[in-house]
């Protein structure tokens, strides 16, 4: 369809203005992270006078980010892996109706969104099980087979031909082997989306660690950054470095898996 030149120009102007609203804060963050404290205090808004990568080293040590970072990697890696496996365990039989009451179980999983906030009894339970302030407990809490990855997988598996199951079974392939050697490779695009969305959720959680992990040695990097913010509220160049340190790993993962996000977000969303 032909579009008038003015309408395209206006579209560009609006999109670029919006882009500025997203890029400017990030650019400003980067600019501040390169300044010395004096430079920042004299004029926070001016461009930095030099590139000071040593600010990052200072922030890394002062904020003990190595411990926090390791915790985040551990929690995010373990919970994401377990979440993906459990989501496949739940999604495949329900999508195929290989178990009784499939629809009912599916709805049972879905209603969790509407139910009362489970936070308080959940906390009491974790406490009673002796899992409060433990890494195992936190990984367990962040693992679910019935979350967003599950919803996306159900939608996706429905689009995988049923005949494939039958053909594989005829050849003597068992259920477990089918899931991991035939189905999983077919699910690559949606797995990528599942990985990134699950990982984002675990990595970025701030309330979870605040409630469940009081020991700084066990806290992830979001909580570490927030503590760092409390300590160095007046030293924004150092703080800006801390923010960038926390941001970097996820941005790298995001850039690597970016092309899967649009398709995946939709596949899960509409079919639910």
């Amino acid at each position, binding site marked *: 369809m032909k579009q008038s030149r003015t309408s*395209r120009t206006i579209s560009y102007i609006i999109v670029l203005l*919006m882009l500025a609203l997203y890029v400017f804060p990030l650019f400003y963050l980067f600019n501040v992270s390169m300044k010395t404290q004096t430079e920042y205090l004299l004029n926070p808004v001016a461009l930095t006078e030099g590139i000071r990568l040593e600010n990052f080293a200072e922030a890394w040590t002062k904020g003990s980010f190595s411990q926090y970072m390791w915790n985040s990697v551990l929690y995010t890696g373990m919970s994401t892996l377990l979440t993906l496996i459990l989501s496949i365990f739940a999604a495949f039989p329900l999508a195929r109706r290989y178990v009784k009451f499939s629809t009912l179980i599916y709805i049972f999983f879905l209603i*969790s969104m509407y139910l*009362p906030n*489970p936070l308080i009894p959940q906390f009491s*339970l974790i406490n009673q099980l002796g899992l409060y302030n433990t890494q195992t407990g936190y990984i367990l809490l962040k693992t679910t087979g019935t979350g967003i990855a599950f919803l996306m997988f159900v939608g996706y598996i429905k689009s995988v031909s049923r005949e494939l199951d039958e053909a594989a079974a005829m050849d003597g392939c068992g259920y477990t082997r089918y899931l991991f050697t035939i189905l999983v490779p077919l699910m690559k695009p949606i797995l990528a989306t599942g990985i990134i969305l699950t990982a*984002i959720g675990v990595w970025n959680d701030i309330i979870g660690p*605040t409630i469940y992990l009081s020991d700084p040695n066990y806290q992830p990097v979001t909580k570490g950054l927030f503590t760092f913010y409390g300590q160095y509220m007046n030293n924004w160049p150092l703080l800006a470095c801390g923010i960038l340190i926390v941001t970097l790993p*996820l941005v790298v993962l995001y850039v690597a898996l970016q092309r899967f996000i649009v398709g995946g*977000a939709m596949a899960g969303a509409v079919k639910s």
Partner: protein
Amino acid sequence: MYPFGKGKARLIPYLYLSIPLLLYVVFGFGPSLVTVLFSFTDATGVRGQEWSFIGFENYKTFFGASNAGDRLDAIGRSLYFAFAVVIIQNAVGLFMAILINKKLRGDKLYRAVFFLPVVLGVTVSGLIWQLVANPLGGPAQSLLNFFGTSSNFFGDYNIAFELIIFVQIWMYMGYSMTIFLAGLQTIPSDLYEAAYMDGASGWKAFTNITFPMIAPSFTVNMLLSIIGALQTFDIIYVLTGGKFNTTTLAFDVYATAFGSGSADYGLASAVAMIQFLFVFTISMIALFYLRKREVEV
């Protein structure tokens, strides 16, 4: 028909399914139900302390005369937050999706950048805006100074809450946009060509083709953002910690149970129940109208 064998082999899917099911019942569904029970008790976070059923006492305390004003304010702010976020986030998200769907040059870059705050997360996004809105000479303050005024931003009783709403929308607009974009891409372009031949374009094409055709993604976006906006409070925790008149029901649940010096699980559960009533009622009404609209078109 289950193709992977009979007898014991038939039980494997049940066995595997039972793991996520168990996790869900123990850590999700179960605790949700127990919240109802807790709301009628005087349970506290103090170890070993006895608790008993006290009827509707917690609900009476919540609406009690001494702090009724504060509580009603929190309810009002919860609704204000939800409506503002749902309407603005979806309107802007849809608008941007339509613009980007015009095959502008660099569309992939725009998409990636608008989604970026979701990746950065609430702590990072919150602190970035704290930096931009730093009252001591940050860029937002410089801009206001240029117009001869100034503000305390997140430390200002009058606008702190609106600023939180702004940051929330800034964070999730890209998510709504992404879902709308996927919906828009399913519309065949000959529909627009036909409409164009009939002399319909611009607003008319939007109301007659675009809007009806994206009904499913519209429903999804509305529901997700209504539920999300009524339940979220991490953004408040990060930006103001509930100070400067920025608490909502969701934040109150957290603060009453786990806030400094407070561990009233009974009362916090009662607040959670009141929050639940709002989430349930509003999302059911929304679902009813959204589905009705989908059927009509």
